[in-house]
């Protein structure tokens, strides 16, 4: 009997050892959860008080409370104006369309932006709030021509949703949210107007395209002029990356047919890599968070899904609809699962890139926010200095991690796309 116990003890030694860690961990977790919940309840009551205070009253009273979360989401979001420095903005063309009103074309600097990307003018009922264009959605506001507006306030409704209001001649007018085509997940949604303008992200994408075009052109030219010599300059940067993707991604996953898919894989790798690296620069011409935008990654994932499914051979579709070598009852379970997999694969592709880049940027902004949190939004200089001393090494560390993530995510997107395409074009094997 004692021998049996000894065997049991030996077998479950790992679990018994783990208990030492698990118990304190759970205690810590419960304590943490309690503090968080109490804190959450307190801030919630504070917020509702604030909302009732703002309701019905229309003055340009500025609430100088610093909110790191809102600040982070503002900085990673797409914008209609590109902030250069101070109160200067790069003008971007805006093409706006509202049903019943028609098209409005203007440059983003026409709104005469000052502080935080908020414009002081309303043009045809459009206003610029925190760098994004919104439209007045209330009777009484002059919907034609240019008018001066005083300022913008936030209104929190009872269910916690934040909407903006514009103040014009001491009256409040409700604003529609800015348009976005991500279904409102990032706080936008399709509203009463459509924005076809060139946003910050579009500008960054064109910039990345031009940089990549000139780099690859230079590399290609030096293949002709430096024939038989060792690579040099731009060629020496591009060639190892290119060879790495070809030898480690394309050939192992796609086999002999790799040349057909190589241009697509290379485009996707260098496009994502370029945008990731440009997005890491905290100032102009960087700071456009393109790969951390759900719409962009959605399009990339849809292209990957289309290429995978259109190049799928008979064998691939047979594995989806009629898995060979599996009994009939199992097929009723397996086929829906495989069909779901067709949609889940591109969805994870989309979310992985988006979440990695967004999470990195949010963490950096939160670390920078430490300066304002400790300094109580500029009231306490000593706290600001302490925050700065903490924020700089943390931000540096996070940026180093993000540099790694920029390469890894471009590589992962590429390798996963290659593996999906590889599974779709795989020839029939007899080992089932």
């Amino acid at each position, binding site marked *: 009997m004692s021998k049996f116990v000894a065997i049991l003890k030996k077998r479950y030694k790992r679990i018994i050892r783990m208990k030492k860690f698990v118990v304190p961990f759970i205690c810590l977790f419960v304590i943490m959860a309690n503090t968080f919940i109490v804190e959450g309840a307190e801030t919630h009551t504070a917020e509702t008080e604030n909302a009732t205070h703002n309701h019905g009253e229309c003055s340009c009273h500025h609430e100088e409370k610093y909110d790191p979360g809102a600040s982070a989401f503002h900085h990673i979001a797409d914008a209609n104006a590109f902030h250069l420095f101070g109160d200067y903005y790069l003008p971007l063309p805006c093409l706006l369309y509202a049903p019943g009103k028609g098209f409005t074309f203007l440059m983003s600097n026409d709104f005469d932006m000052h502080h935080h990307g908020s414009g002081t003018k309303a043009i045809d009922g459009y206003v610029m709030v925190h760098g994004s264009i919104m439209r007045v959605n209330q009777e009484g506001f002059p919907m034609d021509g240019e008018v001066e507006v005083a300022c913008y306030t936030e209104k929190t409704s009872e269910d916690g949703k934040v909407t903006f209001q514009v103040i014009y001649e001491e009256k409040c007018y409700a604003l529609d949210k800015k348009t976005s085509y991500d279904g409102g997940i990032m706080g936008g949604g399709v509203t009463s107007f459509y924005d076809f303008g060139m946003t910050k992200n579009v500008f960054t994408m064109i910039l990345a395209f031009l940089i990549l075009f000139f780099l690859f052109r230079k590399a290609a030219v030096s293949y002709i002029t430096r024939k038989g010599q060792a690579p040099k300059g731009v060629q020496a940067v591009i060639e190892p990356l290119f060879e790495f993707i070809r030898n480690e991604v394309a050939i192992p996953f796609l086999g002999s047919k790799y040349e057909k898919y190589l241009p697509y894989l290379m485009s996707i790798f260098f496009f994502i890599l370029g945008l990731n690296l440009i997005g890491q620069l905290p100032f102009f011409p960087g700071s456009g968070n393109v790969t951390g935008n759900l719409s962009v990654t959605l399009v990339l994932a849809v292209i990957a899904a289309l290429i995978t499914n259109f190049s799928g051979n008979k064998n691939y579709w047979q594995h989806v609809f009629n898995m060979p070598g599996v009994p009939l009852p199992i097929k009723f379970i397996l086929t829906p699962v495989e069909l779901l997999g067709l949609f889940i694969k591109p969805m994870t592709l989309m*979310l*992985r890139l988006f979440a990695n880049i967004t999470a990195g940027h949010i963490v950096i902004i939160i670390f920078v926010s430490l300066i304002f949190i400790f300094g109580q939004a500029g009231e306490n200089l000593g706290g600001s200095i302490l925050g700065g001393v903490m924020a700089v090494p943390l931000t540096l560390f996070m940026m180093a991690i993000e540099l790694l993530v920029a390469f890894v995510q471009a590589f992962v997107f590429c390798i996963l796309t290659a593996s999906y395409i590889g599974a779709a074009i795989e020839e029939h094997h007899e080992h089932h």
Partner: protein
Amino acid sequence: MTGTLAAIGAGLAVIGAGIGIGNIGSKAMEAIARQPEVVGDIRSNMILMAALIEGAALIAIILSIFVK
């Protein structure tokens, strides 16, 4: 309150992903120590598997951020 629960959910998702990626890393290190000559293959497969696990965790985190 909901935001706090969401934060806890994000943390729980990270625990799962951490265990998974930790296992991948340890096994990959063992495999490299045994067969250093196939280090390239092991590394790319390791990143691939880590990315798959990370995808599941990130979906949970994104949901916990945006479900309010």
